[in-house]
């Protein structure tokens, strides 16, 4: 807070920005654990989750005033950006990802490796990212189909079809069909 005040007095015209920076730092601090968790659910591994959270927050932070002026809930905005960024990163790296399906167990902490052993978690990892994002938004975020469509910028019909494909392949993988 003092830092914010100092910054404010130092920069007359930049006062608003200093306030915004302090505000953004607070936002990052408060939302970080939840965003990492959500990133973990989206990407399927903690390292990619950290990368995803960092890069999206950097982008959002560099235009914090503009993001706030849009009037949306910034947290919802960041979560949408994470889902979309994850999907587009995957498109770029499609080839590597198809091969890199097996986690490098050496770097994973013990409690995470147990999660890695969950059949459902493994089945989720095999889903293409958009299907996975739809599942995460539905079961992790508890969003409705319309909200998912809005968040991912796709139609309700696409949400439905992606969701049913995802559920079908999860069932197949788990031997539940």
């Amino acid at each position, binding site marked *: 807070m003092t830092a914010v005040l100092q910054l404010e007095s130092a920069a007359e015209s930049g006062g608003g920005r200093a306030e915004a920076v302090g505000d953004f730092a607070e936002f990052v601090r408060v939302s970080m654990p939840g965003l990492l968790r959500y990133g973990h659910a989206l990407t399927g591994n903690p390292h990619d989750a950290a990368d995803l959270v960092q890069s999206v927050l*950097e982008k959002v932070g560099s235009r914090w005033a503009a993001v706030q002026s849009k009037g949306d809930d910034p947290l919802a905005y960041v979560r949408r950006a994470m889902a979309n960024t994850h999907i587009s990163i995957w498109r770029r790296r499609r080839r590597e990802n198809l091969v890199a399906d097996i986690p490098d167990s050496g770097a994973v902490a013990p409690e995470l490796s147990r999660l890695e052993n969950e059949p459902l978690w493994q089945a989720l990892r095999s889903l293409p990212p958009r299907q996975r994002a739809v599942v995460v938004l539905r079961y992790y975020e508890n969003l409705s189909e319309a909200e998912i469509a809005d968040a991912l910028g796709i*139609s309700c019909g696409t949400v439905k079809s992606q969701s049913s494909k995802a559920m079908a392949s999860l069932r197949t993988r788990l031997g539940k069909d």
Partner: protein
Amino acid sequence: MGDLDDDLRRLFSDDRLDVHSVAVSTEAVLRGANRRRRRRNAVAGTFALVTLVGAGIGVSRLGASSPDGTAGALLTTSTSAPTTSASPPPVSTSSRTEAVTTGQPPNSTGGNTGKPDAGGTSRSSPKSSSSPPTPESQPGRYGTLALGMSEADALATGSLVEPASPADPDNRCKAYATKSVPDTDAVIVSPVKGLVRITVPNYAKTPKNVGVGSRVADVKAAYQNAVQSGSSVLAPMSATPPWTYVFETDGTVVTAVFMRLNANDCTSV
């Protein structure tokens, strides 16, 4: 069916989903955000400098088909200035030649001889005073992108960042980020009308010198025909095809500027 739903909910509320082993520090995020902002501002600085130096060239060339990319239009303008040195008005060329007369024959074809000060400096200043910009009829283009341009043409400029994302619920219009504006909806393309929205980078100023950070009053003073629409200020341009500057504001200050095709048919624009 119900089982899988429950299993998924259970999995997603599992404690093991918490990320402890890899932390992202707030400081690292703030540093990264600053770095990104500085990088943008650096481009903005170059922009301002080159604008001062080459206002005339900048303005008049935006109208013509300037070869610069959207990625920091003016950055590229600065590099392209020497190449265009053959065409600008003879006035300046002669003044330059006078300055160099002592040792060099005039056939050294202006500016390419490696003299760092040979850029657009002397050339542009006379021009900026002689041809004031007439933005009310300026064409709707920013860098290599133009409103109404087809998606294929826009992609061919290399200014769009792929992949596109759907811009409306019907999946009809597409949205792209550009090399100068990272927002995923910086440019919106209609399958029928072509480019219907081009977002101007927040460091850029319109030819009437307003942009992100300008006061609403200044925008209205600069564009006499501007009208208020909600929190946005719209300044229509009578070019072909007609388009409008949309200044999004927070009530007092401009927060974003984009160019919108009047005949746009995308719901999200």
